């Protein structure tokens, strides 16, 4: 059982935890002190862990009346200066989309965890899925860029949640942790480092004292504005309407719309290389590359090793971050990779990005829906299959 040493901010040491619990602990270690959520299988355990741990660490956990309110409260808490998170699954994720747009528009640092289940609609609450990965990118209206991470293990549920907070604070953007239900519910060993050795990033604070001229959305060279929070005397206004650098609504100006929306996209696009995380295994000379994430990557790794044992030059490109998509990392291997295999627990989502980045190199898609994730043998067959073509 996960030991609960009361009040410790980071439960440093060795633990046996499930993914949801590790995610909650990662948030706490990263400095999250506000959780607003709503129970939903298979993410409920995150809320339950937060309900117990937030008061111990002096934070707030509130079960809001719905996911829309949860996301709104998270934005409020973040603007009041507190690192904030919510956790949900498909149906709740859909409800949150409008306020996710608000978080993007107001450049609110926050983390949204989606423990993905079978969809669409109510679907299969207790079964895994990877069906929301495109929704994380495009789910809200309007044009924008976000960051999404995909843990493949319980350890990564901890590590990548810390990373999600750091990225959200750096880029003033909502960051998604997209885990499937298996990664969320499985139990594995987790090593939580000493608090001092956990890298924490905080949002840039304003460098000038409060004044009438203060412009809350004036970007730096890195396209990211410093963030004042409520109660410090800056008396700034933030709105979901298109606004200028002073936060004033500019519903009339094409120039303001162009400037703002392009900057919201560019602050991620131009900093892609600082955000993208990919783990390559045996890719340097690979002729077949399996591109996988989440639970599918576990089977993919096994399949790739088996393939190598059989003399096939297979490699695994494991997407640790899903968005922004690692075009460059795919392009880099086109010189030697002759085919890609993409196993996903959906009907074809990230595979479209791989196809786009592969610029004509054949891509085989392996769909699997329902309770059982891809088996290594299925992926191995696919590797075999693309080679024969």
């Amino acid at each position, binding site marked *: 059982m996960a030991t609960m040493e009361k009040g410790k901010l980071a439960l440093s040491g060795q633990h046996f935890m499930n993914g949801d619990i590790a995610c909650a602990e990662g948030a706490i270690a990263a400095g999250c002190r506000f959780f607003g959520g709503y129970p939903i299988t298979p993410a409920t355990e995150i809320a339950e862990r937060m309900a117990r741990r937030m008061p111990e660490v002096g934070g707030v956990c509130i079960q809001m009346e719905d996911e829309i*309110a949860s996301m709104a409260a998270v934005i409020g808490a973040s603007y009041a200066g507190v690192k904030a998170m919510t956790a949900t699954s498909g149906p709740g994720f859909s409800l949150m989309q409008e*306020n996710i747009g608000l978080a993007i528009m107001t450049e609110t640092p926050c983390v949204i965890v989606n423990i993905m289940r079978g969809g669409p609609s109510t679907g299969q609450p207790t079964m895994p899925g990877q069906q929301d990965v495109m929704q994380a990118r495009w789910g809200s209206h309007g044009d924008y860029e976000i960051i999404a991470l995909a843990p493949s293990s319980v350890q990564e549920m901890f590590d990548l949640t810390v990373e999600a907070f750091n990225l959200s604070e750096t880029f003033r953007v909502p960051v998604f942790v997209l885990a499937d239900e298996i990664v969320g519910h499985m139990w594995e060993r987790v090593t939580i480092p000493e608090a001092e050795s956990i890298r924490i990033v905080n949002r840039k604070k304003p460098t000038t004292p409060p004044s009438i001229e203060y412009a809350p959305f004036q970007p730096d060279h890195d396209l990211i504005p410093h963030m004042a929070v409520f109660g410090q005397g800056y*008396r700034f206004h933030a709105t979901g309407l298109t606004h200028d650098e002073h936060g004033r609504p500019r519903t009339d100006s094409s120039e303001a719309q162009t400037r703002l929306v392009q900057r919201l996209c560019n602050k991620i696009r131009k900093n892609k290389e600082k955000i993208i995380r990919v783990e390559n295994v045996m890719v340097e000379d690979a002729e077949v590359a399996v591109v996988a994430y989440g639970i599918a990557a576990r089977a993919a790794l096994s399949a790739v090793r088996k393939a190598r044992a059989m003399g096939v030059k297979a490699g695994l490109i494991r997407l640790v971050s899903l968005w922004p998509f690692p075009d460059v990392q795919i392009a880099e291997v086109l010189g030697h990779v002759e085919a890609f295999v993409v196993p996903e627990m959906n009907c074809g989502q990230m595979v479209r990005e791989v196809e786009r980045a592969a610029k004509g190199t054949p891509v085989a898609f392996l769909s699997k829906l329902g309770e059982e994730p891809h088996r290594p043998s299925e992926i191995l067959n696919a590797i075999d299959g693309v080679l024969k073509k």
Partner: protein
Amino acid sequence: MIEGETVHPYERFLRRGMIPHIWCEGCGNGIILNCFAQALEDLNMDLDKVVVVSGIGCIGRISGYTNTDSFHTTHGRPIAFATGVKLANPELKVVVISGDGDLFAIGGNHFIHAARRNIDIQVICANNFIYGMTGGQYGPTTPLDAWTTTTPYGNIEHAFNLVHLAAACGAVYVARWTALHVRRLTESIKKALQKEGFSFIEVVSQCPEIFGRYNKMETPLKMTQWFKQASQVQHFSDPAKAEITPEKITVGEFVDIEKPSYGRLLREMTTKAKEK
């Protein structure tokens, strides 16, 4: 009259460069802003600690006009946002000023739960009986038979009685005034700002340009005449019987009780959790 001295006494409450505001002639929203400024002035409140949160609608623009930290949320969500702000930093004075549709149609769920929880925020509702910003559609407080663009044959829905709703949900302070009752409205705002827990003030507000024009009260004065003739001050009457009709608008305070706020209970719980 003296020329030259044109600094309004409440200028410091208004965000520089944003006045004149976008509201129409005679709009009650302007009066609400005025009374709010007067209340802050009378209480000598630290403006650095006041956060004004508004939703979508004409009144939603108010957060852009106050010289305080402020946030303009998505439609219906200012109360949920305000909950996050207040719980994250209880030292802030968090005031939600929004409209009848924003708070009670799309936002209805958030209202009832924040009131139930007794979150320590103050909610001021500009009830102008219509969705003005989008051109005059009906809302949950539009009177029966009223003409709006989406009720062109007359409204066939009964309206909410907002003070009854707020009282039923557990708000600790509930009051209703019209935008004509400027003094008493200001006093109610002051009372709410100093009271722990969820306070709700309904302001029956003029929308002469749209609601008025559509319903035989085309000028600001005509609409305000309705307020003047129909208002009856009755403190602590039964909110259930306080429906607004063409003949009668019951105004006054309806509820003023003491109840521990969510924040207070949370602090007690947190202390216990840390000790165990």
